[in-house]
């Protein structure tokens, strides 16, 4: 018996003797009010900092009163430790090769001058956002609710680039690779592959975020923008697009960012579902930006509850607010100018009329009628993906 096998066997044996508590996964509110770091990262305000290498930064809840998340407060998530710390915009090129009629090396200048320039306001959210809500704790960064943001992205359509290169008829998969690298040569790159059918004209290669160059930590000078999709496919520092006919086996595609392949996308910690599927499009979600947990307000004072809501682009129809633990709900005012992929801001005038602790809840409903479940009704999955429970903040009325 190999040593490792022995270890596994002994773990199994001990578990049998002790008897594991056969509980299903439990879901609660994600961890909130983590403190921002004292140390600011390049082009960023100090944010909640889980790791410096690779950088993992979360936006504090208070950011989510705004329709657009400022660049310096936008969350950061890299997978590989080595990020280029210098990029020369005059020599940077993006290469398109594989099953194309003509290989292309496009400079930033070409992109900005020789293609139609397009803009989209879209939410970027990590698939593991709010992971700390799940128990037992799934592996991965224990995000609160701030691994998300909304920006106006400017760039060119991916389809225009691919048309210029000319796709061969066998073309089926498009692979995207960025400039980040690992410490060891053998470590797989963070390559993503998407099927051509998944890509529409809303997918862009963006060089601008909220009217400025992309911050380095958000993928300067170019990143993929796939409105409606979780951010795992929004490759940063995009430098290489490869067109293929067959899907390549990739760690970040086959193992990470996947949920159980069943209707409820759920499983129990004891009995993991045997097959998985990619997380792809975002579900309906809202986050309260104000008040914060622990905010103290006076009785009969005028409180404006604010937050943001979004889905995968079907559009938010309503955001409902409850101040009586979910017994009754009232509609919040919505910003009706927001695009379908953008944060829709909501506000709700609230005058607290009882003393003590009050739970404020927000629940978004989209145009398909899909609505957020209570946190306790969000079903567990081993990766801690796609949490979208009704957000709750507790305030003190004095």
């Amino acid at each position, binding site marked *: 018996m190999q040593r490792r096998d022995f270890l596994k066997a002994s773990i199994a044996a001990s578990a049998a003797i002790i008897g594991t508590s056969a509980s299903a996964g439990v879901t609660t509110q994600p961890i909130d009010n983590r403190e921002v770091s004292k140390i600011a990262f390049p082009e960023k305000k100090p944010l909640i900092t889980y790791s410096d290498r690779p*950088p993992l930064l979360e936006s504090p809840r208070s950011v989510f009163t705004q329709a657009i998340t400022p660049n310096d407060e936008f969350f950061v998530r890299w997978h590989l430790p080595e990020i280029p710390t210098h990029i020369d915009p005059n020599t940077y090129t993006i290469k398109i090769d594989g099953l194309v009629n003509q290989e292309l090396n496009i400079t930033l200048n070409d992109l900005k001058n020789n293609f139609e320039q397009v803009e989209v306001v879209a939410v970027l959210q990590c698939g593991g956002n709010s992971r700390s809500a799940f128990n037992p704790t799934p592996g991965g960064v224990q995000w609160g609710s701030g691994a998300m943001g909304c920006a106006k992205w400017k760039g060119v359509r991916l389809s225009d680039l691919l048309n210029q290169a000319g796709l061969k008829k066998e073309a089926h998969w498009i692979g995207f690779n960025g400039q980040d690298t690992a410490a060891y040569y053998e470590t797989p790159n963070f390559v993503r592959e998407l099927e051509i059918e998944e890509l529409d004209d809303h997918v862009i290669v963006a060089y601008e975020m909220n009217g400025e160059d992309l911050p380095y930590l958000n993928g300067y*000078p170019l990143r993929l923008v796939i409105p409606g999709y979780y951010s795992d496919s929004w490759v940063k520092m995009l430098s290489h697009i490869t067109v293929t006919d067959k899907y390549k086996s990739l760690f970040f595609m086959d193992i990470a960012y996947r949920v159980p392949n069943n209707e409820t996308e759920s499983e129990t910690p004891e009995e993991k579902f045997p097959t998985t599927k990619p997380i792809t499009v975002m579900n309906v979600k809202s986050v309260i930006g104000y008040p914060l947990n622990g905010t103290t307000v006076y009785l009969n004072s005028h409180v404006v509850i604010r937050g943001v809501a979004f889905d995968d682009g079907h559009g938010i129809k309503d955001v409902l607010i409850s101040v009586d633990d979910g017994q009754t709900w009232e509609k919040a005012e919505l910003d009706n100018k927001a695009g379908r992929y953008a944060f829709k801001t909501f506000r709700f005038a609230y005058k607290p009329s009882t003393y003590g602790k009050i739970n404020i809840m927000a629940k978004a409903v989209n145009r398909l009628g899909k609505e957020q479940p209570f946190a306790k009704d969000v079903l567990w999955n081993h990766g801690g993906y796609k949490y979208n429970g009704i957000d709750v903040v507790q305030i003190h009325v004095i």
Partner: protein
Amino acid sequence: MIQKITLITTLAVSALFAQVKDDIAVPYIPYEIKMGKGFDAVQANCLMCHSFGYIINQGPQSKEFWVKKTEKMVVHFKAPISQEDQDKINDYLYKYYGNGELK
């Protein structure tokens, strides 16, 4: 005439300016990690690729979780960690960042 030519030349080679001058520097954050038996193996192997922050922010986890995590680093990320060091790392992580459950 000379001025005009100069102007055209300037336009033709007009550079793109990054909003950041020079190189960026990602700051080092001194994450406080617990000292104990096996820490040397953690320092020697894990830090090659990621910060201590990435470890301690996984939340308290079972022995099996840490064993699989280390295995993932070796199998998928190709980290050259010996079996001996893997065992030391797993014992350390379970002792200091464990949840008391084997599985």
